[in-house]
């Protein structure tokens, strides 16, 4: 299997190259593009990014494993990131988690503070925040997806 950036992404890469003093800066942007393109970051994608950024593949691999939002494996389940940090915990995230655990076909990730502490408890699905959660609200959200 080989990986190729889409035409749009290649254009975006060229555009971004002009905005940074060195191509290495395109590491995170291209990792994001690859992940959106394929749903995860494959080794082939890492090689392609290595080309774009002139960073050795191993270093890209190290970067990809450093940041929690990058996935090196494909998952066909809906990824539900639930905040478990203090403010959310104080506002009942444990209950939300317990409720979510009873559901199938979702993958629950316990994540750290999502920057929505004032509207706790929160979860994030596909880059979207769902705040002030209650069990009924969670049900409604999941149903809609």
């Amino acid at each position, binding site marked *: 299997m080989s990986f190729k950036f889409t035409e749009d992404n290649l254009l975006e890469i060229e555009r971004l190259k002009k905005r940074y003093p060195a191509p290495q800066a395109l590491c995170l942007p291209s990792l994001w593009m690859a992940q959106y393109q394929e749903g995860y970051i494959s*080794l082939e994608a*890492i090689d392609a990014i290595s080309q774009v950024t002139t960073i*050795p*593949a*191993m*270093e890209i*691999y*190290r970067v990809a*494993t*450093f940041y929690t939002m990058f996935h090196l494996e494909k998952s066909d389940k809906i990824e539900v990131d639930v905040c478990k940090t203090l403010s959310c915990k104080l506002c009942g995230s444990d209950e939300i988690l317990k409720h979510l655990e009873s559901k199938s076909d979702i993958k629950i990730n316990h994540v750290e503070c999502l920057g929505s502490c004032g509207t706790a408890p929160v979860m994030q699905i596909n880059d979207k925040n769902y705040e002030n959660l209650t069990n009924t609200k969670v049900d409604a959200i999941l149903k809609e997806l």
Partner: protein
Amino acid sequence: MSQLVKLIIDGQDYEAEQDSLLIQLLIDKEIKVPYFCYHESLGADGNCRMCMVGIEGQKRPQIACDTLIKEGMIVNTKTDTIKQVHTDILELELINHPVDCPTCDQAGECSLQDFYMEYGLHSSKITIEEKVKHNKAIDLGSNVMLDQERCVLCARCTRFTDKITGTHELGIVGRGDEAKVTTMPNRPLSNPYAMNVVDLCPVGALTSKDFRFSQRVWLLESADGVCHGCAKNCSIIIDHNKLKYKDDTIYRFRPRRNDAINGFFICDTGRLSYRELQENRQETPLLDGVKISEDKAIEKAKELILLYKRNTSIIIDANLYTQEIEAIVAFAQEIGADVYAPLDIYRDEAFGDDMLRSSMRAANAQTIINMDINTQKPKKVGLILNFNHPEKFESAATINFLTHTRAETALTLPIATFTESSGSLTNEDGITQFSKKVIHKNIPVPTLIESLKRVSQ
């Protein structure tokens, strides 16, 4: 040259270059401070935080590997505070470390073991079940095995593949206490210098598959030697021993620091060349494939030399010591023989690189050239005396002086290998090293010079 400045360490006066690294001075002057991540060949990384020292005027202990020497600096390495810091950080280092030295291959040459013995730390206070579990036997490739649980994440090995070989096979992935050294899936460690990471690893996390558990290091004797793998002549340490009822045996070659030649490293081919050196040795004289006594062989050789007087060519292996080559040349003059040392056979462009490896795979080729010895192939003659040269040339008769067996039927006399004899050799850059006899066989094989003497008497 930058300026020399004075500083005081533990009450003693020292002089050092301004802005040079404090840790290097401590190491050079053998002032003991524990450290893992610093290595002269790799520079400072500042990750292990072990090399803490007190610097007067600074509130907090500072890492010596990130401290530049300044005029009048006052450094303390032995105060109670500093010792406590060393102990504390060492203890943390041990939290997730198995501390099973008795079964560890590195025992005896592990900095962690040295340090915690010295600081009197014995048991770690975290229970075994709570330790972060990692893989204990990963084959990284190139004969290198990794025990992730023993690793202290000093990043020496990864900096080696990043900065020294530029091959980037190794890396620390993950983060926090889940961080670990690894290769990328299906991309093993594979570069001609890979095994140096075993020497660089300060603990027993990286071991050589070649050497793993074959010997306890404290049972080994170490001697200086010179690698004969190519015209670079890397300086090595030969680790060997002679167990009861066994013969003196080499267990490994390791790099010996020599800034003029190989720095800190050697290539894997050179490192592993000790194996072939000991295999298939020519131990007895042969005539037409049949063992004969040494006396008989010498007698036969003398006969042949006499028979083919003025019709003899001598072929010299370009790996022989200079003293041996000189003796051969003198002998040739005596009997009026032509001398050749054909070099083409040693040329291996694929082997050479711009780090250490030379495409001339003969240790003393430079001496052949310096002595103006004919490097062409010999013309067909009556008798050929081949002193361990790898090629076979046509002639009516042949006398071979060999270190290793060959499918030869001619008259063959065994000779000692370079570890069993002494001599000097000059590398391709003109640097001459002397190499002493290291291996003492139970039944010694005569050296080339000894054999030659007997033949010419």
